[in-house]
């Protein structure tokens, strides 16, 4: 009896692990209210709830009988919640779609309604629409915002040391040395968290592999990741480690952000979403950015991608109302409101912002953008090519991998699933 008890206790404990293999929950979409239709919006942006309510208010000025509810769930759990709901034929009417591969997977699985003939779609550039275009070439999402990664810098430190935004790669390297001689950490980057590394490669890489031309070639299958162009982009990242903070292998996101906003470090290679955080942490910080100057004689680049799109649930009972809402999201009125309220770059071209930094970033996006290649084109595969480059770069910074081995591993990973490279 005692033995039985002990064994069943043990079995119980080990079973607990397996529970996590399957969780179920639903974000229900209920029918209409008494005087019209009720739309639900699912999203991972819990922090934007108040801003979305203002957007909905504006929408209701035109469509007073469509009741819209913004129901976000936690960022890290959104995919699981949404996927489970969609599988059981439920889910919100309007879906905040992850960009590129994960979103397109949903479209290909038939969970989304194609947006054929939605007015306003034609204003977006092709690469913006690609974030939510199915493999059947139909458009499934209205792009919401553009994220960018670039080198941020502390204007005060640059002034003090007498530096200007670099125009060439050589200038950039000299600038790093000057900062180091003056006792500053030039680049605030840690290698403890892998995602920071693919992000950093997204900023610095294009300066070496030759930005859009290489992207066009590799997506056409005309070149490889083992090419000299790509290898040099990895070597450049390796070379830059002399300008990283002390003990960079143990530093994560919080650490490097703190080093930058406290003025210990002069530059910070990160994404546009950090602007608000940095300002909140240190309102005194004079924040600037510069496009990465090319090492191979091309134009400087800002690295961009679509961060999210809005799509319609194929199982929704209120598709017409949902289309009206998506239509509203393509208007200039919405775009202006979005940049003001959310302090992000609207995917709608030509929207001005009253925030100087956001505004000039938006301009740079229109003139000098290159895609965040690993996210836009190589987020597929298992483990994804993007995850592969993250781990491999980490290995390189720990001295376990040479830049050449990194390039080889990226090529192997991409070759395993990416059609043009097969």
């Amino acid at each position, binding site marked *: 009896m005692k033995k039985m008890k002990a064994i069943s206790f043990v079995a119980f*404990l080990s079973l*607990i*692990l397996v529970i996590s293999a399957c969780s179920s929950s639903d974000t229900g979409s209920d029918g209409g209210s008494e005087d019209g239709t009720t739309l639900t919006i699912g999203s991972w942006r819990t922090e934007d709830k108040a801003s979305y309510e203002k957007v909905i208010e504006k929408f209701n000025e035109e469509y007073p009988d469509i009741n819209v509810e913004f129901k976000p769930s936690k960022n*890290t759990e959104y995919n699981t919640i949404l996927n489970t709901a969609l599988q059981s034929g439920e889910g919100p009417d309007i879906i905040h779609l992850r960009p590129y591969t994960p979103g397109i997977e949903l479209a290909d699985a038939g969970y989304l309604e194609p947006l054929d003939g939605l007015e306003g779609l034609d204003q977006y550039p092709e690469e913006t629409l690609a974030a939510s275009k199915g493999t059947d070439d139909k458009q499934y999402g209205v792009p919401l915002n553009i994220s960018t990664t670039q080198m941020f810098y502390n204007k005060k430190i640059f002034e003090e040391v007498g530096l200007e935004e670099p125009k060439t790669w050589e200038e950039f390297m000299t600038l790093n040395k000057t900062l180091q001689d003056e006792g500053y950490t030039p680049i605030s980057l840690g290698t403890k968290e892998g*995602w920071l590394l693919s992000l950093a490669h997204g900023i610095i890489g294009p300066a070496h592999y030759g930005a859009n031309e290489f992207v066009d070639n590799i997506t056409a299958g005309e070149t490889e990741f083992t090419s000299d162009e790509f290898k040099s982009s990895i070597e450049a990242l390796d070379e830059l480690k002399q300008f990283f903070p002390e003990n960079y292998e143990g530093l994560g996101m919080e650490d490097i952000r703190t080093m930058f906003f406290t003025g210990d470090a002069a530059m910070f290679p990160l994404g546009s979403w950090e602007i608000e955080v940095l300002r909140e942490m240190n309102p005194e910080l004079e924040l600037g950015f510069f496009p990465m100057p090319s090492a191979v004689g091309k134009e400087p680049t800002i690295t961009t991608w679509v961060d999210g799109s809005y799509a319609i649930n194929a199982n929704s009972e209120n598709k017409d109302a949902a289309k009206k809402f998506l239509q509203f999201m393509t208007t200039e009125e919405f775009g202006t409101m979005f940049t003001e309220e959310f302090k992000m770059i609207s995917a709608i071209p030509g929207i001005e912002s009253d925030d100087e930094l956001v505004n000039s970033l938006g301009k740079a996006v229109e003139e000098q953008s290159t895609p965040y290649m690993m996210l836009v084109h190589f987020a597929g595969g298992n*483990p994804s090519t993007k995850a592969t480059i*993250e*781990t491999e770069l980490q290995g390189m910074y720990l001295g376990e991998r040479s830049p050449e081995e990194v390039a080889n591993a990226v090529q192997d990973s991409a070759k395993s699933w990416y059609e043009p490279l097969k």
Partner: protein
Amino acid sequence: MKPAMHKPLTLKKQRNWKRLTIHLFPIPALIIYGLFIVYPLFAALTYSFFDWKGIVRGEFVGLDNFKDLFTLQPFSDLFWNAFGHNILYFVLQMIFQNGLAFILAYIIYKKVRGSEFLKIAYFLPRLLSVIVVGFLWKLILNPNYGALNVILEKVGLEDLEKAWLGDPDTALISIILVNCWYGLGFGVLIFLAGFQSIPKELFEAGKLDGAAGFAMIRRIVLPLMVPSIMIMTVLTFIQSFEAFELVYAMQGSQGEPYHSTDTLAVYFYRLAFGGSAGGSTTAVGLGSALAVVLFIFISFFTALYLKYMQKKQVDL
């Protein structure tokens, strides 16, 4: 005398009714057990037999997922890498957590001064949430402003300063030692209860027979502590092969740096749910296969161990 005739009958009926109804009470618990434990177990098992395209179930592929898990790169390398880490997790926890807990519990049992205070002090970390523990130790182990490196510098041991969680040689060991610190009090508690259940007369009898010091521990304490040691070993075994929370709290779901802190559960999480930021792809089939393998492995070895120890207990 109608009522008198009637009474015993009702009593009997009542007793029968009671006997029947008593079987109804476990039903709510059984439903919950079935729904949240038995069903997911079989669901995971069936998932592992199918091909998955993202979240859409594809065709039946039999044991292909299991085959891929062990033969296809990089999955098999990652599996054995994580498996090795789990074994290290178990070994170090047995030595540093349970070994130390045994000694400390013995000291407390011998009633040194302040033993009551010590008992509470050792147990205190256990009251914190794992996430809090992970966060605190992340601060302590921070390479540039963390307490550990600062102390090392102050006492003149700069050479030992390290990026503890960033260096693949020290990252996993650091996490395991934090886990030992966290679990120490629980071990002390279990062992102390074990010591206290040993009848005092046995010690006296031992003394009379001339046993002292180590011989006393070897001949009297150890055999009688087998049940406590057994339960701690089993719990540590299960816990170290399911190690997830602390690794996740301190290093995230990628087993960083460079897979040096990957455990099977973290690897499973990454396969089944696609990493931390929600952007990457998932492999539900492979993840389920891994969960099944892990479940079979843990239950098999635990059962084996329990059987062995029970025999041992009788022998001793």
